[in-house]
């Protein structure tokens, strides 16, 4: 890590960048254009997001708010927990703990800095972490290992049983920094009495852990409020997902990212609801006018990503899709499993979905346990890919309901789990009639494969398979 990188607090830098970006539109259009020149590596993404109007403005604002919470957590006397994207932060907010979501911060960093997270990625290796570990956690945890982030009080993850490299990053960092660690462990089956009981017991253990760490009892009134807000968010997301099924889809390409990022940052908080509501408004308007969400106005193809996106600088993936008239029908991260989600109702997967029940304290905790065990990735990457409720079923189901023309896999070389079965998955999705493309890039580290090379190969695939 360069000396100058160590000079600044990592989260403070991110907060400043997003705070400044959130104020960009307060000036005149001419001032706005003039300002963009001063942020050469960040300008395209800011412009892409802000050009979506109110939703984009609100989205940047909540990113800034999140970073502000994190940067000043200690000054406000709050506890901090390093956690993961597939862990619903609702419980942290109910217990007044500031969640530090590694992967989301890695995406922010990758989007806006010239060097992305490379220095933090490499720093992890310098202190003993394997370079084959997943870049999504390494990209941020490196900053905390180097001591240039907010003080961390604990590590909490829910990926054991789902993803080794994720869980291991937490376990490594907690041992390295000698901080308390808690894991929610996931059995191979999603449903059934044994799994339900296990999830419940485990979640209760989590609450005991958090209570011990904060010295405070869980505030059930607050939790009720958060879960009601979460239910409201689920309704909005369900409607957005329903709208996305219309041809042409009225939902703009960047919305997917904005939906899941908002949820990962502020599930159960009004900040997230605000972004979702404004997105819904635009999508409804577009639908009423039968307008495509693509900026070119014409929908040529529909893509479903069966794993994660590619977070190259400047949102180049989204740009590429938008430029080519490819309607982006989401990925495994952007689909939640609330009982009212369209894919749940369509395939009668009520068993695999969660319900929010705020009628009693026990019901609240059970609801949280269910929500967490059904988070993106946690739900469908645990058991064998071809088992009920798992990766293949979800991929084919979602691709079908959204009328996808093809399926794309993208991950990171650190993903032992999906790389262990993606060839088999692709074999089956091809058999089901979906041209399937496996990207060999690293979603968080363009040093593995440059974006230019990634884009070229992606377009080559479309050509070879005569999709364009």
């Amino acid at each position, binding site marked *: 890590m360069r000396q100058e990188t160590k000079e600044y607090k990592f989260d403070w830098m991110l907060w400043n960048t997003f705070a400044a970006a959130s104020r960009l539109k307060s000036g005149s259009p001419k001032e706005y254009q003039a300002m963009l020149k001063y942020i050469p590596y960040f300008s395209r993404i800011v412009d892409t997001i802000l050009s979506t109007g109110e939703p984009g403005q609100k989205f940047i604002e909540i990113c800034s708010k999140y970073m502000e919470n994190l940067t000043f957590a200690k000054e406000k006397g709050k506890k901090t927990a390093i956690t993961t994207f597939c862990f619903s932060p609702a419980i942290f907010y109910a217990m007044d703990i500031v969640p530090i979501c590694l992967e989301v911060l890695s995406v922010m960093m990758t989007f806006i800095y010239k060097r992305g997270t490379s220095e933090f990625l490499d720093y992890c290796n310098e*202190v*003993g*972490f*394997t370079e*084959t*570990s997943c870049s999504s956690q390494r990209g941020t945890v490196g900053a905390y290992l180097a001591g240039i982030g907010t003080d961390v009080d604990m590590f909490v993850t829910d990926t*054991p*049983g789902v*993803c*080794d*490299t994720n*869980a*291991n*990053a*937490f*376990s*490594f960092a*907690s*041992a*390295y920094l000698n901080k308390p*660690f*808690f*894991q929610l*462990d996931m*059995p*191979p*089956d999603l449903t059934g009495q*044994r799994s339900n*009981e*296990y999830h419940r*017991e*485990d979640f209760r*253990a989590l609450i005991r852990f958090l209570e011990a760490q904060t010295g405070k009892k869980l505030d059930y009134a607050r939790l009720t409020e958060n879960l009601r807000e979460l239910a409201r968010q689920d309704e909005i997301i369900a409607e957005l997902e329903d709208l996305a099924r219309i041809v042409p889809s009225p939902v703009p390409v960047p919305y997917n990212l904005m939906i899941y990022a908002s949820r990962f940052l502020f599930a159960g908080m009004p900040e997230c609801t605000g972004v979702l509501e404004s997105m819904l408004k635009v999508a409804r308007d577009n639908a009423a006018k039968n307008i495509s969400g693509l900026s070119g106005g014409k929908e040529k193809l529909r893509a479903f990503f069966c794993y994660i996106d590619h977070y190259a600088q400047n949102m180049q993936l989204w740009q590429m899709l938008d430029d080519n008239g490819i309607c982006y029908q989401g990925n495994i991260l952007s689909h939640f499993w609330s009982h009212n989600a369209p894919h749940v109702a369509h395939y009668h997967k009520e068993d695999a979905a969660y319900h929010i029940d705020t009628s009693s304290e026990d019901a609240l905790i059970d609801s949280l346990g269910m929500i967490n065990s059904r988070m993106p990735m946690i739900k469908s990457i645990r*058991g*064998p*890919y*071809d088992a009920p409720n798992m990766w293949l079923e979800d991929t084919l189901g979602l691709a079908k309901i959204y009328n996808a023309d093809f399926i794309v896999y993208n991950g990171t*070389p*650190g*993903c*032992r*789990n*999906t*790389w*262990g*079965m*993606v*060839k*088999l998955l692709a*074999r089956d999705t091809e058999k089901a009639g979906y041209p399937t493309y496996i990207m*060999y890039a690293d979603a968080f580290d363009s040093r593995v494969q440059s974006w230019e090379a990634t884009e070229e190969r992606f377009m080559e695939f479309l050509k070879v398979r005569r999709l364009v």
Partner: protein
Amino acid sequence: MIKEFIEASTALNNKYVAAWKKDGKKVVGYTCSYVPDEIFHAAGILPFRVRGFGATDTTIGDTYFGPFICSLPKCMLQLAGEGKFNFLDGAIITPGCDSMRRLDECWRKAGKDIEGAIPSFFFHYGVPHKYEDYTIKWFTEETRRLIAAVEEHFNVKITDANLKKAISVYNESRRLLDRFEALRTLDEPPFSGEEALAVILAGTTMPREEYNTLLEEFIAQAEKSPGIKNRVRLMLVGSANDDIGLVRVMEGEKALVVADNLCFGSRFYTDQVGENGDPVFELSKRYLGHNDCPRMYGDYQRRLNILEQKVKRAKIDGVVLQNIRFCDLHGAENGIFERDLEAKDIPCMRLEREYGPLVETGRMKMRVDAFIERIQQRREVA
């Protein structure tokens, strides 16, 4: 005597397996040290630890697994695809780690493409990643599920009485291995680390009663044998290793591996299974709780303590922390082990390797030699 162990540890379908099969009895393979052998013993089935030893390439493995995957399960699948595990009547897969648990799907699909590549009984055995009352409970139920499946498929009855008998046979084995360990860690051990690994490995490939008999004879003989002098004493830690050749390369002329913390090594005999109480519960408790793999997240300190005790007991001069490429669990933990052990003045060397035919011996030897030179230099200075 040692020849028997070496043969049993270097041939897959060794003479004990062949004799067992000739009697019309069944063999079930398992891939991970979290599977209780005793269950199969109680069913009159030979438990056999599935290995990747002897694979010369991974063309079949690479057909199903993606590129960023540990070469151990790839080698296992390779051997299965080549028909080398045709003697197996069943296989148990666990989520020991992500690479290993995807052997489930990959082996099943290979079984569809290649005739006879997969045994008729195939079972995914879940293993929690933490040790708590409710996880032991879940694991006990999982073990009962496994028992029921074995009973049904092989048309056998696994009674509590038979389980208790099996536990006592295996505990006897563990007691013998404790005596063996005491010899291994003597100032002048009567056998090399390569031989020690052969002895331990053989236990996973042959009937336990015969193994115990052989082991007892071996110990009696070793107790009378002259010791090996003047070697640098190493401990081997990290990823799975079932290749005695790897230990041979490390030992060379100057070193001796006198202790390990490997799942194909000493982890099996670190603790006994309780002989009173419900046998399924006792087995589940022991296999989940005393099997010190970094897959049990958040338990680093305990594992560090174990290493420190071993270093002291075996008078270790240096610790070799190795991991197979893409084994992040061991690789990362090795990184912290190195920091913490070196801070206590215990020399460590990290080594990343590929599983499979020993093609990198030159590079590995160069590093181990340099490590030994470092240790010798320390001694001279002291």
